[in-house]
């Protein structure tokens, strides 16, 4: 085989390897590092705490609502091998798994709820003394999904060649549903369910290392979940505040 033809085939092979981001590689990168859901509270600090004690009881979390690891599935892909031009495009769907989180999910909700009540609740949260009320929380939905698009082309004509590829991640949609039941003894006195949704920004700037882009995508998904938890926890605390204000 002619030496220059060999070189061109080698170059086109290298370009394709560099350009086509495999499903397994993205999945590996999304799962490679866990990210913290920690956030800063910005709710109004409660001036007055009344004497009512609420104990944070069970947190229901069906661990099957979210997979253990993040999953990447091919939605559609095509590859056009023309004589002098190769074009490829792949659209993948990424679903968040527990491996993305540093924290244990129900424990994170418990501690975040306690911190929020200490900050903006007009009641006290206590588990040691005999509480006036108990509150049960249930994580009913926790889902973050988003696309990942990889596309590019390679061309060559005699001794000239060139290639370009781009990977775009997101926007991902993160949804969280949490319900609560406030109980006095065995009797449910107040309950409600809250939903929060956050759409991440699309990551479309040029990364020299696509592994970093994919890890940033995972970080943005966790950031969205963190926002949703903050939002829902504030809503639940406000709801219980309103109930207790009416009772005092």
């Amino acid at each position, binding site marked *: 085989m002619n030496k220059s033809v060999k070189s061109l085939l080698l170059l086109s092979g290298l370009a394709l390897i560099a350009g086509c981001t495999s499903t397994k590689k993205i999945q590996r990168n999304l799962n490679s590092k866990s990210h913290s859901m*920690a*956030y*800063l509270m*910005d709710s109004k600090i409660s001036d007055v705490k009344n004497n009512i004690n609420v104990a944070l009881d069970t947190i229901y979390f069906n661990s099957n609502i979210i997979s253990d690891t993040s999953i990447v599935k091919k939605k559609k892909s095509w590859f056009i091998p023309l004589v002098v031009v190769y074009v490829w495009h792949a659209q993948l769907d990424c679903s968040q798994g527990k491996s993305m989180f540093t924290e244990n999910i129900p424990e994170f909700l418990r501690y975040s709820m306690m911190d929020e009540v200490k900050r903006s609740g007009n009641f006290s949260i206590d588990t040691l003394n005999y509480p006036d009320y108990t509150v049960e929380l249930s994580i009913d939905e926790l889902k973050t999904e988003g696309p990942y698009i990889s596309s590019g082309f390679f061309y060559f004509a005699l001794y000239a060649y060139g290639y370009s590829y781009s990977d775009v991640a997101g926007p991902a949609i993160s949804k969280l549903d949490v319900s609560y039941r406030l109980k006095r003894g065995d009797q449910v006195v107040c309950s409600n369910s809250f939903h929060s949704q956050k759409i991440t920004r699309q990551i479309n700037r040029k990364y020299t290392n696509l592994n970093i882009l994919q890890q940033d995508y995972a*970080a943005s998904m966790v950031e969205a979940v963190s926002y949703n938890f903050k939002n829902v926890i504030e809503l639940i605390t406000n709801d219980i505040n309103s109930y207790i204000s009416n009772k005092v």
Partner: protein
Amino acid sequence: MFNYKLISMIKKLFFLLLTLISLQTFANIGINPDFWIISQKVYNNRVSKGKDVILYRYIIVADFDKNYKNIFNTKDEDALLSMFSYMLYKNKTSLIEKYIANYDPSLKINTLISAMYYFSKKEYSKSIAYLLTFENKKYSFLKQLLLADCNYELLSDKNNFNSVIKLYQDALDTAETEQYKALVNNRIKFIKYR
């Protein structure tokens, strides 16, 4: 003839480059490449123009005073901080060292200035020691933010940052403007994406 034209063009490009560099309105704080010092006015300008303020960890000071050579002739605490901040911004090493060696310790602002000095040298433990002894409501946000940044920088494992969240929370709770709150939240973003 051609060489002369080429040299002339290179000279012009060099001066243009120098001008562009000198026009930059924020710079590293002293020799610390991880943080940027900026005046409130310039920061407002960057925010209003939609420029990226997320990926930089800014230390915002009220003002820069270009008459920094007067730093030995004034007792005005705000002026001292503005002049010293300008010296850090321009990295006037010898003058900074001279001021730190000769300042009046009875002026409380010099405790904050010392903290900023050690911060600019990445000597975070010394910076914390000064910050903990400094009390001034006017600069409480700057103090809390520097404290949180110092403690974060001292973490041996930067991925395990939960211990400094409380300190950033303290900074956020002392922030009096939405802009300062955003500044603290951007620190968390920086930490999460680093």
